[in-house]
């Protein structure tokens, strides 16, 4: 149980760091939530109000707007840039400081970075549950959705951490992390509901774990997924986590060897 101590300390430290400048934190939050939502909304506006469509992929204007508002809650929880921090540590040699400590650097960086997201997740959960209740959705679904979104957050970091180990080999893994984030942007459902994909392209998002970040939680929270679909998603998320845990162990082992042999 002693091992819990540093984890809590790291969480606390990360949260303090993220919220040290409260107004900036708030502006940042509003900006990163508002702008994507605005862009989604204007797409639906253009299709329905200007273009005169009444239905897109079986969804009405209201359906799409509901998706937009709900997805904002979960897109705030996804990601974080601590995989970049990990890469920077490897690249600049800052990792050496951590290797001497009795904590896993991969986990330390994650916990410190996720603190902010947990805080945001808490806020989103409260807002979401109240909103769900107000419009007649099941607030418990929102709770489940948020758990799925948090699992997604872990997957996202794990994938990033695995990519970051490339920095052991090349000097720079920055570009690949950027590419990953951009792919995630479209395949997570943050920009558009994934069921808008043409039928013959649906497999594209289904084969990545990214839809578990935003699209999945949003669908479940809106009652568009039943419990079976949700349960499947949770299982799939866990499978990905196991997969990446092993993946990181392997790549990290190889990477560290190289790091140490090069003298950092």
């Amino acid at each position: 149980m002693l091992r819990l101590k540093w984890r809590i300390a790291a969480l606390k430290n990360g949260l303090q760091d993220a919220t040290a400048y409260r107004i900036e934190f708030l502006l940042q939050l509003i900006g990163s939530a508002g702008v994507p939502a605005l862009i989604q909304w204007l797409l639906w506006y253009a299709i329905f109000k200007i273009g005169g469509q009444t239905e897109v992929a079986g969804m009405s204007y209201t359906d799409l707007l509901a998706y937009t508002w709900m997805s904002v809650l979960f897109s705030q929880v996804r990601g974080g840039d601590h995989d970049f921090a990990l890469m920077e540590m490897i690249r600049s040699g800052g990792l050496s400081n951590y290797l001497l400590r009795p904590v896993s650097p991969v986990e330390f960086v994650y916990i410190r970075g996720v603190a902010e997201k947990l805080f945001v997740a808490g806020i989103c959960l409260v807002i979401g549950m109240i909103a769900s209740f107000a419009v007649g959705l099941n607030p418990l679904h929102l709770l489940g959705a948020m758990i799925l979104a948090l699992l997604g957050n872990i997957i996202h970091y794990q994938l990033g951490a695995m990519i970051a180990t490339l920095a052991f080999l090349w000097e720079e893994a920055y570009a690949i992390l950027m590419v990953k984030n951009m792919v995630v942007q479209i395949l997570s459902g943050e920009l558009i509901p994934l069921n808008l994909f043409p039928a013959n392209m649906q497999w594209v998002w289904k084969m990545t774990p990214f839809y578990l970040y935003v699209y999945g939680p949003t669908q479940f929270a809106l009652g568009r997924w039943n419990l079976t679909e949700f349960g499947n998603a949770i299982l799939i998320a866990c499978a990905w986590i196991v997969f990446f845990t092993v993946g990181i162990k392997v790549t990290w082992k190889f990477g560290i060897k190289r790091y140490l042999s090069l003298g950092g």
Partner: protein
Amino acid sequence: MNRTLTKYFRVFFIQLKNNFVREAVYRSNLFTMLFVDIIWIAVEFSLFGVIYANTPTLAGWTQPQVYFFLGIFFASDALFTTFFQRNFWNFSDLVNKGELDILLTKPIHPLFLALTRWMNITAIFNLFFGIAIAIRYAEPAGFSGGMRWALLPGWLAVGVLTAIVVRFAFSIWIFWTERSFALSRMYYQFFALATKPDALYPGWVRYVILTFLPFAFIGSVPARALIHGLEMREFLTIVFVLSGFFIFDLFFWKKGLKRYQSASS
């Protein structure tokens, strides 16, 4: 006057040469960054691809028209990335690390030196890539082409100029706050508004991106101007807004310098 101009051109070309030499050393890095930009445009393409799979037009814009717009936007952004982007990221060093001191003692405008120092010449490939996209979709987009292609450099210049003056307005606060990073990030959040044709936006948003935050001038208005032409009123707005920003930037640059000179010790 002529001599001054020669001097500025010379300095610019030497900065260009020096950056080229620098990049040659770190080639692999820069190519991966090129790749990032290409993926970025690919994401934008697929986004619209998905949308157009569900609807034939978007606020009157057909799919080829949007792709034409993306090409123009990508080209204009590539120009900004090539010549200016990094200088703005390094703007804070200018003040916080006192690099401005050295610049101020040189017999040349300090802003000119500061804004031409860092380039990313490899990104120029994306300019050609963007133009290639525009050419590919020009005809289906209804752009009459021919001699009208001659207007393209002018519109790209408008796009870059807009990015410069707006980005500058977001950077200049470094004289007053050490954490200008948050503002730079905000610029990029708003910048997302530039990635869609302005016709899509509902009234007031459209008004904002055509005036106070003229992100529409970066790609959307140029693309629209090439396809449909603009009304006189819109030309005047562009001139008015850009000169407004220019004056704003200059005013705060001067005020910032004054503050720098009274606060630094």
